């Protein structure tokens, strides 16, 4: 269907453009060439991303079925590499240097896990071509997939990147819910996770504990861990209904707001474009996610449907958590806003995911 390609393309380009505008606005006043040209690099990522989008849109998505384990092992390898020789930035070890490109394998992990779940739960019985997942027991339906999730998740949390790790966990839980796996397994998993929560506290690093504490009350440490969320709320709040206007946001441009071009780009955007802009942006995301769910619902192939659902979930989880932490209703975890936040890995992965979606919609008629 050419239709869904056009819709997805237009929405993605629109969101990316708003992202470039916000990145420009928050960085153009900073000193140094690197800052001045950062928006140009984002444009480059987007162009390359669009290229990948069209490329993937023309690769039959069934190929991913075959590549699943290869991709999984590759991701595992990258994540391991990050831990061993990744570059340390902002106190975390998340990037791998490939010449001039800093690659963030955890972004890739999200997509690869989506593909992995899709394949795992859409295996069919050799006897009657029915889905196996409905007959899975506790081990195959819960323990084994959780084990496969836990490996990349553990590596990512160890970076440390709690946010992306949690995204993987959420992805797993919701994917499980969307397959034929018995509901009681999901309940068991949820109960287990909730029971383990208090013990998880001791595994968290100090700064992560601080962030969770300031989420409950940002004012306990206004200049330390609470600073970001306070400044972010000020940025969004001071935008008002119409916003301060493009290039006129003081919070982001005068650098009161940290990470104003990456994780907190939503605050930067909302400060300058106000409620009108913020709501508009949310609506664009909603349209994108809705389109993705529609594709999933239209698709008859179970593997394709699960992949589309996974991509929808991946986008939804990231957008919702990122915006929620921007407006101060979720703890601060390092999750970027797809297509808006600066960063090549995130842009590439998102565009590839969208490309897969388009291809699923295009090729469903085959079956």
């Amino acid at each position, binding site marked *: 269907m050419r239709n869904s390609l056009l819709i997805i393309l237009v929405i993605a380009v629109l969101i990316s453009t708003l992202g470039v505008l916000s990145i420009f606005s928050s960085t153009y006043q900073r000193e140094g060439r690197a800052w001045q040209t950062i928006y140009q690099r984002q444009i480059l990522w987007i162009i390359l991303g669009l290229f990948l989008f069209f490329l993937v849109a023309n690769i039959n998505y069934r190929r991913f079925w075959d590549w699943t384990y290869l991709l999984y092992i590759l991701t595992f390898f990258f994540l391991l590499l990050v831990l061993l020789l990744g570059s340390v930035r902002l106190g975390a070890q998340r990037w791998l240097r490939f010449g001039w490109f800093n690659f963030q394998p955890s972004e890739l992990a999200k997509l690869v896990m989506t593909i992995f779940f899709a394949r795992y739960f859409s295996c069919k019985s050799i006897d009657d071509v029915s889905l196996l997942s409905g007959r899975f027991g506790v081990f195959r339906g819960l323990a084994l997939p959780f084990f496969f999730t836990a490996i990349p998740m553990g590596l990512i949390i160890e970076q440390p990147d709690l946010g992306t790790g949690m995204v993987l966990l959420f992805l797993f839980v919701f994917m499980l819910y969307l397959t034929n796996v018995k509901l009681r397994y999901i309940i068991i998993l949820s109960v287990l996770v909730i029971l383990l929560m208090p013990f998880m506290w001791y595994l968290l690093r100090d700064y992560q504990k601080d962030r969770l504490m300031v989420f409950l009350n940002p004012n306990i440490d206004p200049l330390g861990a609470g600073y970001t969320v306070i400044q972010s*709320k000020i940025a969004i709040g001071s935008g008002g*209904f119409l916003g301060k206007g493009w290039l006129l946001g003081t919070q982001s441009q005068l650098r*009161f707001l940290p990470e104003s071009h990456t994780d907190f780009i939503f605050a930067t955007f909302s400060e300058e474009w106000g*409620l009108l802009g913020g709501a508009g942006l949310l609506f664009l995301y909603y349209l994108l996610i809705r389109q993705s769910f529609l594709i999933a619902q239209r698709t008859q192939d179970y593997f394709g449907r699960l992949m589309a659902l996974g991509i929808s979930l991946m986008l939804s989880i990231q957008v919702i958590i990122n915006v929620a932490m921007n407006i101060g209703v979720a703890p601060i975890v390092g999750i970027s806003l797809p297509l808006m936040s600066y960063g090549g890995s995130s842009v590439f992965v998102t565009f590839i995911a969208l490309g897969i979606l388009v291809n699923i919609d295009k090729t469903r008629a085959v079956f």
Partner: protein
Amino acid sequence: MIRIKIIIWLVILMFLFLLLGLFNLEVIHGRKYREIGDRNCIRLLGQRGSRGKILDREGRVIADSRLSYDLMIVPQDSIQRDKIILRASRVLGKSVGDLKSAFKRGYVSSSMPVIVARNLELRQAIALDELRVDFSAIIVQPNPIRHYPNPKLTSHVLGYLGEIDHWRLTKLEDYGYKTKDVVGFGGVEEKYDYYLREEEGGMSFQVDHRGRFIRTLGFKPPSNGRDIQLTLDIKAQKIAEEAIGDRKGCVIIMDPYSAEIIALVSSPGFSEDDFLSQDNAAISRLLKDPNSPLINRAISSAYPIGSLFKVVVATAGLETKKINSNTSFLCQGSIMVGGQEFKCWNTHGPQNLIAAITHSCNVFFYKTGLLVGAQAIHDYALKLGLSRPTSFELPYEASGFIPSPLWRKINKFKNWFDGDTVNLSIGQGDVLITPLQVTRMMAIFANGGYLVTPCITKSIDGRDMLRYHKKPEKLNLKPNTINYIREGLKGVVNEPDGTGTILSGLGITVAGKTGTAQASPGQPHAWFSGFFPFKNPKFVICVFLEHGGPGYYSCVLAKQIIERMIREGLI
């Protein structure tokens, strides 16, 4: 499929929730966050104008402003800060600890410059300014402060400057006063603070997250306060000041017709600079001083005036026709009233009115007082402007007090006896009068029967204030009353046996009356009030020495003042 629907609805719900959160932040609390955001990045740097000058009648400066310099440090860089403090301590000769604690006390936020040292000398300011080459965080801010070319000279007329107190702030908030404003306390500085007060200017600028300057948003130049010209003659003021020395008391010299105050000295005075430099030790010393140097004795406190009150009794007697110029009483040194003996200070023999004033004969006035009656004396005292404020411009004027039978009946439930009338006739008892009221009363006999309102402001910002001044009020005294009393006052000085004869032979004729008011414990108050030259009076003078002894001492003081005024050509 049902599970997909549930998930989709969950996503929609989450999006609506985010929208709600966005609405809550941007619309419901938008104004609050906008303010906080502005506070984040907008800084104000005030620049003060200079307070209006205070000039004397000839335009000579009594108080003006000079530039002082404050050392400020922008606290963004703590390493630089410590280095600056180290260097500054060498220049200023202060210890590093002092400067550091001053910095800590003044610290507001990381981008607001902190005043570390105030009132630097020019030499120090230049030396510190040179450090700017190495340290960008140093600011030497010029700041106009009050300067008194003649410290202590006019302290009570001017009052002093200090940080606004809570009580004044609640009253003056609506007129644009803010906490930490410097305002006048007492005297002209307080009365005309609104005119004298400078308007603060300054600039607002934008800073980034580290407090670094980004751009100027606006600048408002400060405007200076308005100048005030007083009617004081700084020469006469100086003469009076030097004459009284460090004795307790006050001197007032006034023009009897226009009621312009030429000199007003209250002693002991205080140094206005102590308040300006916030020298707490000096201020508490002033507050604790048993001589109360902060009280303006000329207007703010009332005293018994003794024989000076005889002028009132004489006026009452003449006006009520109980006595006339031919009335004569025999002074035998004392008089018996109600079984009690009231003494005169001498045995004067037969006395008529003029002689009685000249000799300050008590017996004559005892008898006159008894004839006139206490209530009439009280009424005439009020007519002559006693027992109520004179509506003088300076704040904190006392009203004084004259007792009367009616007052005593109502307030003390006691009867008034003839003995009380006798006491009242020579100004003893509960009589309380401010030196300014005495001056004004004396002016009535100098200017031929007009009650004037003393004033001290000649012009504000070049506008003539005397035009708005209350016109003298004609008292409708009989011309003879005034003439007789004038003759008596002239006799006091010019008759060889007058009580103020020491003032004769100055080259001009002085008329006046002495007063020795019993004020136990301690010495009596010494009073002299008069006017000169006798024919065409140019000045009324009142000299008061608190517990200064007999009136004679005040006469001596008055003599010194008048002599010097003649010598310096002021008359």
